[in-house]
Every structure is written in C-alpha cells, then in structure tokens.
C-alpha cells in the first residue's frame, strides 16, 4: 500500500551565482509501518528531502503525497525529531510534550486524558522521572528522548528523524537505538530517519536508501534489510547477513559514491584568509 510517496522531487536553491540544484528527481515510496533510513555523505541533500516531507521546504519540482493528499505545509501529522532536540528551554520536559499534545488533541481528548497521554509518552521513552526538569537540567540523551516523546505524542502518520542521535556519544547512542527498536516494536510507526551511521541504519531499518553525492543528488540504491525483529545488536554483530548488509552500504558510500574532499587545499585557503584578516 502506498502510504507516503515522494515523487520526482527536485530542489533548487537560489544563490548569488545562479540556481543550485540540490536534489533531482528523488523517487521513493514508503508503506505504512516501514522504517526507512536515508544515508549519504554530508551535503548530499538528505536533510533537504526530510524537510520537504516535513513541509518546511517547498520542492521546486515534483511533490510529496501522504495518504492521497499533497504535502505543502508543515503539520503535526509529520512530526520531526530534530538533530539537536529543539526543546523549548523555558519549558519542562512535561510542558514540552504538553505543548505538542494540546496542539493536536485539544477538543478531542479531555483534560485528564491529555495528562495521561503526556505521561504515557514520557513513559515510552523512560523519562517520567525527570518530567519536571528543564532541558538544561538533563543530559543530551535525555533531551533527545523527550524530543522523541514529543514527536510520538502527536501520533504522526510519519515520524521524521533528522540524525536524531548524531550529537550523542557512542554509548548513549547505542542505548537510544535500543530504545527506538523497543518503541518501534510497540507502535510500528512509519519512520524516515537520516543517519551517517552505517550500523545504525542496518540495525534499525527495513530499507536503507542510499543517496548519491550532490549537486543534483538523488536516490542511488535501495537496500532491503531482511533481518528478523526484534534485533539485538550483540547477536547481530556476528551475523553473516548483517555484515553483508553493512558491507553493501559501506561499499556504496566509500567506493561508488566516494567523496573526494579537497582537504589540503581548503586548509591552505583558510590560512591565506587568516593572513589577510
């Protein structure tokens, strides 16, 4: 069943030196309950795709159709988990989730139902113990948990995650991935997640969409991950298929789409500018 259809999406940004084509003809169909990862080198337009699905950007060509309706503005049916949590620093964890819940469910749920729903979602991410704390009082991983709770609480049709664990240390990240696996097993959301991390992509996804390098980036290859769920990172580490999938993605990223960064020249340039300044 076609749940979310990204059809012929192109994106051009106006720059002083003329239009810059970031995306060209991105095609992707996602069915309900599917977990899809977008992977690619930085600057390949992964975030742009996500922002177009979120409605934060308007595609200059093609379009996104969710459940038969075209997406052209942001809305709570496409909740976003931002890379750096984006919690409102002046609200507690509870209030941050509350803001989203009230926006989506006021009039549909009673006051006590809303309260229960907020707590339920904080429970899902194991954050009830710190729900009266402000973002500045909790750790990075905890903030991201609250960010996920806020997104889940909106009961979105699609959950969009923009490198949700990118800013976390490796241990916390692994822990968060396990939590996400657990939540996904319970709720079976449709998820699009952007990641840089090959292990994360293979561990979490049903499909991995590998994007070519920009400009005019597009979908390079799509890899279906046929591993049984629930997945366990320790057991999978020795799994043959898991490692094949991993190798497949790595080959795409570092052989077929190898990004040649002009490291030395850029360093020289910076130095010259320094001298000029």
């Amino acid at each position: 069943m076609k749940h979310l259809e990204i059809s012929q999406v192109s994106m051009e940004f106006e720059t002083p030196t003329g239009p810059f084509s970031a995306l060209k003809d991105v095609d992707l169909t996602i069915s309900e309950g599917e977990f899809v990862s977008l992977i690619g080198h930085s600057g390949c337009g992964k975030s742009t795709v996500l922002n177009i699905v979120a409605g934060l950007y308007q595609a200059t060509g093609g379009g996104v159709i969710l459940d038969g309706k075209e997406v052209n503005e942001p809305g709570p049916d496409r909740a976003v988990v931002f890379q750096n949590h984006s919690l409102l620093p002046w609200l507690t964890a509870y209030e941050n989730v509350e803001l989203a819940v009230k926006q989506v469910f006021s009039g549909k749920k009673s006051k006590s139902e809303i309260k229960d729903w907020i707590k339920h979602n904080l429970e899902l991410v194991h954050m009830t113990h710190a729900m009266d704390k402000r973002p500045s009082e909790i750790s990075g991983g905890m903030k991201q948990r609250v960010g996920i709770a806020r997104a889940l609480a909106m009961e979105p049709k699609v959950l969009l995650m923009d490198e949700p664990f990118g800013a976390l240390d490796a241990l916390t990240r692994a822990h968060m991935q396990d939590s996400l696996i657990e939540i996904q097993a319970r709720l079976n959301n449709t998820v699009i997640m952007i990641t840089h991390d090959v292990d994360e992509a293979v561990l979490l996804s049903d499909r991995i969409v590998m994007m070519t390098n920009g400009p005019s980036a597009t979908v390079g290859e799509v890899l279906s991950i046929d591993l049984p769920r629930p997945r366990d990172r320790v057991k999978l580490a020795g799994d043959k298929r898991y490692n094949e999938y991993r190798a497949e993605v790595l080959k795409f990223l570092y052989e077929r789409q190898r990004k040649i960064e002009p490291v030395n020249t850029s360093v020289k340039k910076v130095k010259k500018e320094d001298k000029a300044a």
Partner: protein
Amino acid sequence: MNTQVIKLFESMNIPGHTSKFLEWAKDPSKVFKTLGIPLLSIAIFLAVWGGVASQIKTSLGQVPGPTQVWQQSVTLYDEHVEEREKEEKFYQRQEKRNAKKLEQNPDAKVKIRPYTGKPTFFDQIFTSIITVLTGFFIASLIAIPIGIVCGLSTTLYTALNPLIQTFKPVSPLAWLPIVTIIVSAVYISDDPLFEKSFLTSAITVTLCCMWPTIINTTVGVSTIDKDLVNVSRVLRLGWFTNIFKIVLPSSIPMMFAGLRVSLGIGWMVLIAAEMLAQNPGLGKFVWDEFQNGSSNSLARIMVAVIAIGLIGFALDRLMLLFQKYVSWDKSAVIR
C-alpha cells in the same frame, strides 16, 4: 566568634544576599574585594573633587566640594521635614475650624482646602520618578509590540525601519515644543486628571525612549533559534501561542537589554524635559536653583545631580530584578 556569625547567617536562611554575607563571614578578605575596592575608589573621587573644586571661583562663589554638598543635602532634608510639619498643621487648623463650624450649625458646608506650599526636594524626586515610569511604561507598551511584529515580518521591518531610524536620534529638546503645543491643544478638561506639564514631560520621555526597545526587540525576535521556529511550524502553533510560548521567552534577554537602555535614556531625557516644561520634578528643581543664583545654589544643584545619578542607578537595578523575575532561566547571570 566567626563560627557563631556563620551559624547565625546559616540559621537565618534568608533568601537573596545572605549567601554573600555568609561568604564574607567565612573569608573576611573577600569583604575588601567586594566592599573595600569600590569604597576606596569613591574616597579617591571625593578627594579629587574637593581639591579641584576649591581652586575654582565662580560668580556664585567657590565651587562646592563634598562637604558643602553634604551640608546642603541635610538642609534639603530639614526643609522637607519642616514643610511636612507645616502641611500637617495647616490641615489640623482646617479641621478645627470645620469642627467649630459644624458645632454651631450642623448643616454647614465644610471644605478641606489642599495645601499649596512649594514642593520640597523629595516631592520633586517623587514627581520625577512617577513621570519617568509613566513615560517609560507607555513607551514599552508601544515599543514591544512594534518590535515583535518588526522581528517577525521582514516587510513590516522594511516599512518601519526608516521611520524608526529617523526619529531615534531626535533630541528631547526638539520634541518638547511640539508635544507642549499638541498637549495644550488636545488635552482640555475642566477637571484634569493630570497636570499638563506632567503629560508633556511623560510624552516626551515616551517619544525619546521607545527606540532602543523597538530595535532590541526586533533583533531578539528575528534571531530566534531556527529549530524552535521549525518546531512552531510543525506544531502549527497559532499566532498567539507562537508569540507567548516561543517568541517572547526567547527574546526576553534582548528585550530587557533594550528596556534598560530605554529607561536610562528616559531618565536622562526627563530632567531636560522638566526644565523646560516646568513639571514639578528634579529638572525644575535644577532650573529653579539656577535661576535663583544664591550662594548655595551650586551645592544644591550638585545634590540634585547626585540624586539623579543614584536614582538612575536604582532604576536600572530595578529593571534587573524585574528581568530576573520574568526570565525563565533563573540561573542565568544577568549583567
């Protein structure tokens, strides 16, 4: 003994500055750092002032040094007390007279006439503070909303920016004649709630002090974290929810920086406005003393100068306290 002092402070557990006292009791050398250094610099300032002042002769005699200014501030206080006593006696006399009248004829109409003595220095301080706060309050009511819409909409910003930039540098002395004439033309009432001079000064303060708040609020609102703006868009927050939950809290530090500059400017402008508008405030006090030209005038004006400075300082502290009260981040260091 020291430990007793520490225990005493700890047991009192008063919020606010107790912690500082506690710090001092534990480490007396800190007293010098936090109190001693400023006191020393003030002492040096007073000494230099006294030395220089004694060298300058004016038409009103020698320029007063710290001692003469201190004497005059005591005199001003005594005059205030005296005037209050006079006022009380005046009302007492009236009451006695009225009581007598009522005794003779219970139907007699009695009236209490208001006391019309000249305002004392402290009355003038009071008038000035009320005037500046009124002007500042009106200015904030206008400036904050304008700043918010300018920060949110580039179109409105482009539309209003030339006007803001043009009116911002206009001196209060240029506004005053216009305000005076308009107030006397528009504000006609048999039973006026405010004095005309009060309105004129307050409006002049408003006109001069709203600009920093507008500009800072605009900058504060337009530099909100882009992620938070996106959160608001994804949630489809309504206009008001967006303003109150996202825009205002995140622009409070910038807004208050503007408000503090505004209040400072307002206080500076007020003195000039009062001089010319003859609003019975500190500005008029200075002007009257200048016109008076007695041998004490210079010293009395200097008392006013110091009072103006100290009140300006206090107003800024007051805004800081208010900012602390309003701000969501109680742990932030506010300077």
